[in-house]
C-alpha cells in the first residue's frame, strides 16, 4: 500500500488519533513560521486548522497522491494561506482573520459552492438527531465507507445502513422543503 493510501486509511478508520499525531508533529513548525512572519499564535492556530481542513478533504479522496511528507505538505498549504492573509490585511487592516479566512478556505476547497444557502440548511442538519446526523456526515463529508459506518452505528448489514442513510436524507429534504413552503406562504 502506498503512503497516500495508508494515510487515507488511517484518516478513515481512526480520524482523531491520526489528526492528533499530525497536529502534534506539524503545528510547532507552522507556529514558528507564522510568528517569524509577523503573526500571532492565534493566527498560526487559525491558519493551521484551515490547512488541516483542506488537507483532510483532499487526503480522503481516492485520487489524492502525496508527493512529500504530511508535515511538508501541510506547511506548504499553511504558508500559502498565511501569505494570502497577510496581503489581505495590508488591503483591509481592520478585519479579523476568522470570518474572512473561513470563506476563502471554502472557496479553495470547493469552488462554486453557495455557502450562504448551505448555511441556511445547517440548522436542519442539526435538528436531524445525533444518529442521522452522524450517519450523513460520516458518509457524505468524512467519506467513510458504508461498511465502517454500519459497524460503528451497529447496523446489521451494509444494506440496512444504506436504507437508513437514504431515510435520513429524505427526512432532511422534507424538513427543508417544509421550511421553504412555509416561507413562500408568508
Amino acid at each position, binding site marked *: 500500500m502506498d503512503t497516500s493510501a495508508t494515510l487515507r486509511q488511517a484518516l478513515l478508520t481512526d480520524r482523531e488519533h491520526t489528526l492528533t499525531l499530525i497536529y502534534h508533529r506539524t503545528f510547532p513548525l507552522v507556529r514558528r513560521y507564522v510568528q517569524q512572519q509577523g503573526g500571532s499564535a492565534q493566527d498560526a492556530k487559525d491558519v493551521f*486548522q484551515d490547512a*488541516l*481542513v483542506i488537507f483532510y478533504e483532499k487526503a480522503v479522496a481516492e485520487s489524492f497522491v502525496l508527493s512529500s511528507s504530511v508535515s511538508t505538505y501541510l506547511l506548504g498549504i499553511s504558508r500559502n494561506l498565511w501569505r494570502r492573509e497577510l496581503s489581505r490585511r495590508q488591503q483591509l487592516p481592520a478585519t479579523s482573520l476568522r470570518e474572512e479566512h473561513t470563506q476563502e478556505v471554502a472557496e479553495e476547497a470547493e469552488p462554486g459552492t453557495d455557502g450562504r444557502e*448551505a448555511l441556511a440548511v445547517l440548522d436542519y442538519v442539526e435538528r436531524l438527531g445525533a444518529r442521522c446526523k452522524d450517519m450523513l456526515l460520516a458518509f457524505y463529508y*468524512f467519506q467513510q465507507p458504508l461498511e465502517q459506518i454500519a459497524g460503528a452505528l451497529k447496523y446489521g448489514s451494509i444494506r440496512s445502513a444504506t436504507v437508513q442513510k437514504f431515510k435520513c436524507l*429524505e427526512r*432532511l429534504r422534507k424538513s427543508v422543503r417544509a421550511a421553504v413552503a412555509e416561507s413562500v406562504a408568508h
Partner: protein
Amino acid sequence: MRPALERLRLIERHLLGRPTPVEAAQWQLQLLTDPELAPDAATQQHLYHALHEAGRQQLRQELEQIHRRYERQTRRRGWVQAATDHLRQLLKRPRF
C-alpha cells in the same frame, strides 16, 4: 427500498457517482419525461452542500479539541521542565 428512497438513490448516482455514457443518456431522457426530476436534483444538490458545510464545522470542532489537548500537554511539559531545571543545575555542579 421504497420508491421515494430509490429516487434519492437515482439522483445521488447522477450527482455524486460516475455515470456511464448510457446512464447519462438515460438521465437526459428522464429529465424530458419527468418534470419533477430537475428540481428534485437541485434540492438534493443543495442538501449535499449543506452536509459538506456541517461536516466541515464538525471537523473544526474536533481540531479545536485536539488543539486544547495539545496546549495542555505543552503547558504541563513546560511546568515539569521548569520544576526540574533547578535540580538539573544542582546535579551539573562539580563535586568537590
